[in-house]
């Protein structure tokens, strides 16, 4: 019974993580790609006009140096909150905490789950 419960729990966690990843992809496409690029490489359509270039989310080394909490904070409160550019706005007034967690999960996928 114990093993069955454990398997069911793992399956549930996996399903939640999968749904969160889909949500993260969807939100990233809507809110982030115009600056961070369709490939997440920091070369969005707005980037050419920016004085400070958007973060390349596929840069494993740079992204690995940021904790999930930091990523959450910068999405929620904007670049200023971690002493970065004001060009990165805070999305806490538009997105729920769950949405921001989904975006953090998507960033981890972009940066660190390459084949």
């Amino acid at each position: 019974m114990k093993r069955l419960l454990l398997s069911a729990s793992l399956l549930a966690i996996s399903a939640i993580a999968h749904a969160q990843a889909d949500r993260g992809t969807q939100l990233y496409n809507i809110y982030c790609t115009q600056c961070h690029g369709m490939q997440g490489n920091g070369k969005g359509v707005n980037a050419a006009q920016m004085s400070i270039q958007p973060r390349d989310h596929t840069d494993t080394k740079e992204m690995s140096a940021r904790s999930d909490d930091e990523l959450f904070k910068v999405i929620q409160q904007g670049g200023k909150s971690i002493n970065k550019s004001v060009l990165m706005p805070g999305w806490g007034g538009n997105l729920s905490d769950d949405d921001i967690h989904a975006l953090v999960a998507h960033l981890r996928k972009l940066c660190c789950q390459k084949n």
Partner: protein
Amino acid sequence: MKHLFSLIAAAMLAAGAPLTAIADTAGDVQQQCGTCHALKHNYATSAIQERAERKAPPLDYAGNKFQRAWLVSWLQNPVRIRPAGVFPSAHLKEGPDGDAIDAASLAKHPAVPAAQAEAMADYLLTLKPFDSLIKAETYQPGTIAERMGKMNFGKFKGCDGCHQDASNSGGVSGPELYTAWKRLQPAFISSYIANPVAWDPHTMMPKGDANADAVHKLANYLKVIGEKQP
């Protein structure tokens, strides 16, 4: 739909417009504009995916948003306001230096004759579901030194990340703002900057934390640059 027309007709009658003209125009707008523009919606209860599927900005609050003179003129001679379309990700292609606008994917807005533009503008200006947001506005148009305004718009607030404040200056994912003052009602400008989510729960404009004074400074900058437009 019948109920919607009745409501519109009542509003137009109250404004002194002839009923037959109103019904005709409502139908005309529904037929000509409704394919791309939302004339009735509830984004708050819609899935976020609707934002990616929008073909054009919603018009259901046009009466709280647009200036009549601009609307009449623009409908006769439409020029692109959003350089990358209403949902930029749908109009991009990969280029050597990064993402670029795929101009071929952007549809051209049809032009209408003067009389139809007048009638459509009159009808659209009756659509005012957000009177309460406009009424809550305290913005009184003022002025600001253009140089200071530009610095505030760009360096301090980062609006130029997505918006142009001059042709070819600023980001392209949002609507250009150098004609915003001619296009939009002052109270709408201020209200939308302060809380875009109240107008559109799925807006791609971030709801910032600027206080009323800071919002009014941004609106005044749009006034300064907008009044220089022909």
